[in-house]
Each structure stands twice: as C-alpha cells, then as structure tokens.
C-alpha cells in the first residue's frame, strides 16, 4: 500500500496536488476528495462554481415551468386566478367582520400582500421539494447542490410576475394615486427574493432529513400569513402586539413592499434596515446550513 509508508516525495507531490486543487475548484485539473468534518466546502471555489453553472438552475426552472404548462396562456391565467380568488375570499371575510369606509385601498393592499406572500410561500414549498425531488440528479452528478433550491426560487419569481402585472390593473381600477415612490418597492422585492432564497435552502435541507416537512408547511405558512401585514395594515396593529410582530421577518419585508406599492408611503428607515437585515440573515443561515449538509445528501436520498 502506498500510504503505509508514504515517502517524503509522495507527501510533497500530494501537497502540490491539493494546493492546485484548492486554488482552482471543481473545474480544476486535479480534484481531491477527502472526508469532511461537519463543515463547509471552500467558499470561494464553491460560489465561483455556483455562478459558473447558473444556466443549469435557469434551465431546470424553465423546463419545469414548461412541463407544468406555466408558460401557456391558460397557465398564466391560473397563476393569477389562484391568489386573486384567495384575496377575494379574505376580502369578503374581513369586510363582514369589520366593514371599512374605504374598501378600495384595502383590497389593493390585500391583493399586493397576498401576491407577494404567494411568491415567498411558493419559493419555500418548491424549494423544500427541490433536493429530494431531484434525487436522481443529486445521486449521479457532482455540482453545487444550492443550484436546486435556487432554481425553485427562480420558478417562484417568474410565477410572481403575472400577478404583479395584474396588481397594477387593480391599482388603477381602485383609482389609487400613482407616485414615483412606488418605484422604491423594488428594494423590498429584492429583500423578498434574497429572503426566499435563504428559506428555500433551509427547508430543502430539512426536507432531506424529515420527509414530512412539506406536510407541515401549509399550516406553518397559513399562520405566518395571519401574522404578516397582509390581512391588516401595519398601523392597525394593537399596541400590545406591535413589539412582538417586529420579530416576524415579513413584517418589515412585506409591510415595506405594500406600503410603497399601494399607498406610495415611504416607510421609516428602521423598516428598510430591518428588511435588509432579515434577508441577509435568512440567506446566510439558510445557505450555510444547506452547504454544511449538502455533501451528505447523496447518501441520504
């Protein structure tokens, strides 16, 4: 056995090989596979490779949308109809419970909030299934596994675009004012995407270890919806509850988004900082958790 009495020359050669490998990452000429402690792959080569192979995530998302008929006319109608009906149901319910003087803005707020929440819950749900559902690919090919949940986030985002267009129609129909501050909602949309990416990675990992994660998700998401500023305006929160609701990441992310989009109100600086903070926290925690586990996925599927 060569390793039993490894010569000095052998050690030197090995070291050179490892150095070369760690410098150049996956596509390198030399790859070295060693057992990992619970730990992360080298981050720079990992993300370089993730970036290099992003067309894979895009193509996977495109192919899945094709096979689900998302890109046909009726497929797009369905994407809009589904959250729109839900918004209508909540509108009727909330209007019976507490009639409002001005139903127009509230309905617009409700649809904007539900559309955005649908994006996040969609990213989370498809993201959770992405790794386990992609079992054959994971078991037989070596690539940065984060591409799978990222592809799910892309799918969810593209499913969010038709509803977003419909929102503007509703905005106009309700006679709400247009202002340049609406453009700032893009900032919160960015936060939404980053937050959703982190959560998708997190739930994708959980799903590998606990296959019933996706069965609990609908209940979890339903409660989350009620705790988020979708069915109510941010300023309507009872003073007693307000300090606690701030711990809901969607309080700032969705609240900022709908305030800007629906009413053109610029949120206080605290909301901007909080939204970015939650998004970054979600993506750092979610990605690191995923990456520390991803080399085990192949044996767990």
């Amino acid at each position: 056995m060569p390793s039993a009495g490894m010569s000095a020359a052998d050690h030197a050669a090995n070291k050179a090989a490892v150095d070369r490998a760690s410098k150049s990452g996956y596509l390198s000429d030399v790859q070295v596979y060693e057992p990992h402690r619970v730990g992360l792959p080298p981050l720079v080569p990992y993300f370089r490779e993730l970036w290099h192979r992003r067309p894979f995530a895009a193509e996977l998302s495109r192919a899945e949308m094709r096979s689900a008929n998302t890109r046909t006319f009726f497929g797009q109608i369905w994407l809009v109809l589904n959250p729109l009906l839900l918004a209508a149901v909540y509108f009727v319910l909330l209007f019976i419970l507490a009639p409002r003087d001005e139903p127009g803005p509230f309905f617009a707020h409700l649809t904007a909030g539900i559309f955005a929440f649908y994006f996040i819950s969609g990213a989370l749900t498809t993201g959770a299934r992405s790794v386990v559902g992609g079992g054959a690919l994971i078991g037989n090919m070596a690539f940065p596994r984060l591409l799978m949940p990222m592809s799910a986030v892309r799918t969810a985002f593209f499913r969010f675009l038709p509803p977003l267009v419909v929102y503007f129609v509703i905005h106009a129909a309700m006679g709400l004012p247009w202002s340049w501050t609406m453009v700032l909602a893009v900032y919160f949309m960015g936060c939404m995407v980053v937050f959703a990416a982190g959560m998708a990675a997190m739930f994708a990992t959980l799903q590998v270890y606990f296959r019933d994660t996706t069965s609990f998700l609908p209940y979890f998401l339903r409660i989350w919806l009620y705790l988020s500023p979708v069915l109510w305006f941010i300023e309507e929160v009872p003073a007693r509850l307000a300090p606690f609701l701030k711990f809901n990441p969607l309080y700032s992310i969705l609240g900022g988004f709908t305030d800007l989009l629906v009413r053109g109100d610029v949120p206080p600086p605290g909301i901007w900082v909080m939204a970015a903070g939650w998004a970054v926290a979600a993506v750092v925690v979610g990605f690191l958790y995923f990456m520390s586990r991803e080399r085990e996925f192949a044996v767990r599927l």
Partner: protein
Amino acid sequence: MSSLFASESRAPDAVAAPLPVDDVAVRVQNVSVTYRTTFERTPTFKTAVVRLGRGERAVREVQALKNVSFEVPVGTSLGIVGANGAGKSTLIRTLGGILPPTSGRIEVHGRISALLALGVGFNPNLSGTENVVLGGLANGLTRRQVDERAHDIAEFAELGDFMDLPIRTYSSGMRSRLAFAVSVHMDPDILMIDEALSAGDAKFKKKAAEKMHELMTTARAMFLVSHALASVKEMCNAAIWLHKGELMLQGSPEEVVAGYTKFLEVGEDAFSLEDL
C-alpha cells in the same frame, strides 16, 4: 499491491514506488465509504419522535467500501468486477465526487464524466432533449457547447422522435442508450460506465464499444463496471475485483477475471455463470 497496472514503460522493481503525479489519472488511498441509512424507508419527524420516545438509535451503517487503495495510471482502461452489492457503484460515485469518502483520500486528475447505472441522472417527466441539456449544464458545459452537442447526442442514441417525449415513456434500453450518448459527448478526461451497456441491444453494444475504443485515444482513463466478463477482457487493460467492499485482487483483466470466476465456482454464493 499498489500500482501494478499494465504500464509497459515501468520496470517491475518500480512497482512499489508511487507514480509521479503527472502519470496518475486516479489515486485512491485507504478509502472507506459508509452509508448511514435510517431504518424506515423515509425519515420523518413523526418517526423521529416515536424513536426518541423508545430510545432507539436512528441510523444503521452499511460499510460499502473498506480501506480500498489503488492507483490508475494515465491510459488505463480499468474493468471493475464483483457481485451485486460489492460496492462497485459506490466506488464510481466516490470517484465522481458525488459521495464523500468516510475516510481515506482520492485524487482525480481530470474532468470526469460518470455514466451511472441505466442513466438514472434523468428526470423522468422531462423530455430526452431537456434532460440532455440539463445533464450538460450540470456537468459544467456552457449553453453553446450543449446546443452544439445535443444534435450529435440525439443522432448517436438513435432515438428519433422520442427525444421530444418524456423519459418515462422510454424503455430501459432506450434510457441507457441516451445516457451512454450523453456521457461520451461530454469530452471527459475520465469516463466511467456503470453497467450501462447491459440494457442496450447487440447492435448498440457494438457501436458503444467502438466509441469507447475511440475515446480511449483521447481520454486519460476509463472505468468500466460490467458483469460481462468477456467485454472486460476485451475492452480493459487492467482490472480490479471487489467483494463486499474489499479489494480482492488487482492486475491484468485475464488474472482478475480468472480469480473472480474461480471464486464464483468454489465460493459460497455459487450462482450460474450464465447470469453474467
């Protein structure tokens, strides 16, 4: 018994010394792989809670490879033989960087294209063409390279209109043809084929063998897992035999196949050679 693969330029007394880095395609050092599986088919919160209540251990360990070491010089076509469950597929996946070794170390010099049993890298709901594109992109090709090759791949696999139908409508022979076509068109430095040829028909096997001979002139190394001992002898210039995760024998294909056949004849699990 480290590096005794047929490499004519090497004197017998040089056998024990490790090869210089540039001559090695793959170096496997004391590699063990242990699968940790849960008892239940699908791990869930529910079963985890129930097990916790009973104080049971969550996982069972399967040692698929035990302290395997060998070196493969550039230019080798290595046959891997062994019974079902010997760890052949595990070895291929570990070399391909899909499974991390539990202990030991693997060095691979070159880009690998692994073809695993019956093209299981495919998503059954997507069409043949879509799977080809996805496979290429996941392997790190650019979109342009993939598009250029998609046509050759379809042609080589001889699937015709089936390329636009979902993979779930394919027979296993058609899947393995497509998988083989994909693997050999990735310009691999190192090609690995795991039992993938067994499902093709005789005509395709012949075509595949020709393609593999052609690739051997450009590729750095090739790994062939097969139960067809005759084709191992014909296509490989070195072989190893795995049994229950252990490396039993390595050497020329004739030696290894002879040893393996003898073992089968006298061994405890005596099954008919016709099954191979």
